[in-house]
């Protein structure tokens, strides 16, 4: 069995496909909204150097990633151990040499990586225009606005992904998540000046 087949098999026997998807969307959304909030905050503030903005956003992105990895690993390890224990109880046998025990060790790691890399990866994508501008590549629009456009696009795509999973209109689902982003941006605009 290849590594991919093995991983799929482990996800199947632990029923973790949906958990993986959920963590990806939830934490990816977290990452995108956090970056959106930070960038809008910087837009509303007195002019700050791009390097400072990048460092602040990168710091937040790494923190989100680490938080995602550690929290998911701890909670999923506990959940998998509990599930394995219940299964051993039902089977009245030790399953330590089985695929179930193997999955209980590996699946939390996979879920933790997805949970951590979703916000980190999405945040890094949003920061791309800032980096490009920082190294001298000229953009058609100011880098902070370009980052906001990418953030909104990624939030919309997360909605589309959710819509496809749920089997509902992808456009409606995309607009729903975009609406959340717009509400967030509006709140920041309204409250940041207070």
């Amino acid at each position, binding site marked *: 069995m290849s590594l991919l087949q093995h991983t799929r098999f482990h996800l199947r*026997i632990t029923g973790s496909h949906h958990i993986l998807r959920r963590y990806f969307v939830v934490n990816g959304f977290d990452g995108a909204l956090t970056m959106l909030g930070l960038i809008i905050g910087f837009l509303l503030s007195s002019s700050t150097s791009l390097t400072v903005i990048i460092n602040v956003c990168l710091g937040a992105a790494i923190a989100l990633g680490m938080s995602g990895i550690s929290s998911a690993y701890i909670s999923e390890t506990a959940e998998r151990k509990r599930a394995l224990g219940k299964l051993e109880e*039902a089977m009245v046998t030790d399953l330590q*040499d089985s695929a179930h025990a193997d999955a209980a060790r590996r699946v939390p790691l996979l879920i933790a990586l997805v949970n951590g890399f979703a916000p980190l990866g999405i945040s890094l994508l949003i920061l791309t225009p800032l980096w490009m501008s920082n190294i001298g590549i000229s953009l058609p629009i100011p880098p902070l606005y370009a980052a906001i456009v990418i953030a909104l696009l990624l939030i919309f795509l997360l909605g589309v992904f959710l819509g496809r999973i749920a089997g509902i209109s992808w456009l409606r689902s995309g607009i729903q998540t975009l609406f959340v982003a717009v509400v967030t941006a509006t709140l920041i605009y309204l409250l940041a000046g207070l």
Partner: protein
Amino acid sequence: MIAVKKVILDILKPHQPNALEFSRTIAEAGVDYRVRLTVVEMDENTESVQVEVLGNSIDFEAVQSAITSMGGSLHSVDLVEVQSEPDMD
């Protein structure tokens, strides 16, 4: 040489891996194995299955190992068919 041609096993297994994957893994234990799995009883977390394995020379240890690796527990060997064959060498 005595070759095991057929065994019928009573196994308790978790719902996952499902019957198809479970049978496939047992079949992969040999080159010419034919496996027939019948679900006898279903519980909340487990199911009792009857597995019939047919082959020219069944390696029982390998079959048992495949069952254990899938989280199954062999309860009993209900039928065995063996055949005496002349040694090839």
